[in-house]
């Protein structure tokens, strides 16, 4: 008999595992991915989704199974089994979540590093410039801006000023002021952001990126768009009555279209 229950346990775990992976690969809940770090994000999301599905379905199934299997039948009296604990079981289910959490933590650290999150942006180490270019996402950081990202000749510097209830973009190159963000495909953009009044947040769901725009403390957000198109910029931090209406667009153009736009709008000749 123990053999049968072992086989049953194994089969159901197998079904659960395969089912979790199947769901994670077939239920797509994310918007289009349009930046270099978005595929990395989606990879993390998928792993978390697989683990989450397995744990959630498994726990729910256990609870429902227990409720049905061990329900009190009509006319039944007396108590359940006298089981106050089981050290090996308890060690087992301390260890399993600990291992899962450790795995998820290390994995997400790796993802974070691949996104460039570990880059200390506030430091002006010129030696790090080469490293930074390799990262798929320039990372987000804060603190006194030492123009570290603008020194990096390969990235396009743009300044963002947020206020109630608008985003204003300023292109130092050409001295352009725009209410919409125009960027070329495949080029790293370095946004230096600061708020005029309250805290706002710059969020482009298709880029999987968000950074608060804070008064009195500039923040930097680096990203590389990979898909031409028109994506929403959403303010994600409650900033007042018109918070829901504080939206803009990021227009990702091919390089030549972007150059054309830059030329048409710039106040100085480039």
């Amino acid at each position, binding site marked *: 008999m123990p053999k049968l229950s072992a086989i049953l346990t194994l089969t159901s775990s197998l079904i659960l595992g395969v089912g979790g992976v199947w769901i994670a690969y077939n239920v797509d809940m994310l918007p289009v991915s349009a930046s270099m770090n978005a595929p990395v994000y989606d990879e993390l999301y998928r792993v978390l989704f697989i683990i989450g599905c397995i744990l959630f379905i498994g726990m729910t199934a256990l609870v429902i199974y227990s409720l049905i299997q061990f329900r009190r039948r009509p006319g039944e009296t007396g108590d359940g089994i006298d089981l106050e604990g089981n050290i090996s079981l308890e060690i087992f289910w301390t260890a399993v979540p600990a291992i899962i959490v450790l795995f998820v*933590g290390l994995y997400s650290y790796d993802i974070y590093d691949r996104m460039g999150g570990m880059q200390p942006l506030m430091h002006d180490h010129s030696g790090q410039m080469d490293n930074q270019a390799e990262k798929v996402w320039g990372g987000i950081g804060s603190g006194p801006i030492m123009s570290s990202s603008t020194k990096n000749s390969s990235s396009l510097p743009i300044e963002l000023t947020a206020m109630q209830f608008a985003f204003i973009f300023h292109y130092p190159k050409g001295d352009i002021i725009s209410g919409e963000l125009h960027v070329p495909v495949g080029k790293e953009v370095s946004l230096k952001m600061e708020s005029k009044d309250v805290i706002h947040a710059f969020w482009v769901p298709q880029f999987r990126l968000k950074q608060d725009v804070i008064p*009195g403390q500039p923040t930097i957000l680096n990203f590389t768009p990979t898909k031409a198109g028109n994506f929403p910029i959403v303010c994600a931090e409650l900033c007042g009555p018109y918070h829901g209406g504080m939206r803009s667009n990021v227009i990702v153009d091919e390089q030549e279209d972007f150059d054309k736009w830059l030329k048409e709008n710039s106040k100085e000749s480039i």
Partner: protein
Amino acid sequence: MTISLKPSDSPPEKLQPTGWLKYLSFSLDHKVIGLQYLVCGFLFYLIGGSLAGAIRVELISPLSDFMPREVYNQVLTLHGTIMIFLWIVPVVNGAFGNYLIPFYVGARDMAFPRLNAVAFWLIPPSGFMLITSYFINGAAQSGWTAYPPLSITTPAAGQIIWILSVLLLGGSSIFGGINFIATILKLRRPGLKLMQLPMYCWAMLGTSILVVLSTPVLAGTLILLSFDIVAHTGFFNPSLGGNVIVYQHLFWFYSHPAVYIMVLPAFGLVSEILPIHSRKPLFGYTTMVFSIMGIVVLGLVVWAHHMFTSGTPPWMRLFFTIATAFIAVPTGIKFFNWVATLWGGKISLNAAMLFSCGFIINFVLGGITGVALAQVPFDVHVHDTYFVVAHFHYIVYGGSVFVIFSSIYHWFPKFTGKMLNENLGRFHFIITFIGFNLCFAPQHWLGLNGMPRRVAEYDPQFQLINQISSVGALLMALSTLPFLWNIFQSMLYGDKAGDNPWNALTPEWLTSSPPPVENWKGEAPLVLEPYGYGEKDANKTQEEMT
């Protein structure tokens, strides 16, 4: 301190009003105070719920067309503040804590009965103040987080009243915390060891430690914020050289532990309810105790995971990711232990049991999304979106509120001496469970796809999902009707409960229903095995079965 095992000669009964009037008096009886907390909390729940309904009505259409935008922000601020500070925290701590803890430790009342009454009577005036601020000059409109500089620039009257009432409620919470710690540690009946206490005592001990350590930080922060508003100081005002991020650190130093202040007592209550209705001992008592204390310690060092997009340095993000994710370990232990408590039981599928099991399922989902949100790279996309809204409602509604309902079904016979109608209770559970999941599960998708939280207007592509969510909210609102009907009808015409309808072993059931003043007519019972359910023979038959 001497502990009398016999009733005192002059019970305070004679000095106090009797009948229903005692519930409106400055009563010193812990059971009266507990029920005052419960009923008062439930009234605020109805108000907070109506505000939630207003939010869901506004979100039926993508335009801001149901109420003015300023009012919408006031409504969401009041909804959050009321639900946290006037419903969940007072009920899972104050109501059930005051009612049950003296029974569990074998005492005749709390350690400081007057402080206890003061703690309760701070709540109605602060709640009244908070809600009526809407009619004065508009309530606070910067969210329950009151982040500066927004909270400094929005109309000052509402914000200052908000700060005052949260300060009073925080004070009430601290008084309660001190009282619980003193009662559990010092008023235990001689012969009762800490490790023989029912689990809810441990949960309340852990919670009270969190309350006493972290609430003063919130109080200090809000006082500084009020200086910024009325005296134009510059603690958090960047135009005067202040720092807005410091406020967030201080605020979340309280407000993340506040989540545990809302769920740890719920964990304790579930640990009482599950063994009784599945007729089995609580599985793994010792690991349960250690996981509560583990959650308390870890809960104090995770606050900055609310600030991953605030401009936090990388090392800090890493530290808080790891600390937060590790809370899943002690929490996971508790959930596995509860399922093991069900396993092999003789489970009565009554309303108390169903709500507790609904809690397990909902909370597991909330916990999984919580571990995901702890991961910085995951969080930078979904932070401050409807994904987070879904996550924390799975924790505080699917978790704490389900447990509150479960506990009401479980302890109502003790409170009133009358049984609730189980069929109506099961009906209440089904509607609540479906409505809750219909309301909040789709919000995960909304957040992942680009809908930020706290908005009155949104991208029209999200309309259908928002409408589904609003239908769920409507079901949740309707689900209170069978509950209220059940309460009133049972109170008047319900079956007599008797002293111990569930055949339970914990001390509150070893006295009459409702219990007399000072809890027991004679000597307080000494319960050394609060979870001594289960049959040795059943063990054998179980082995034969497998």
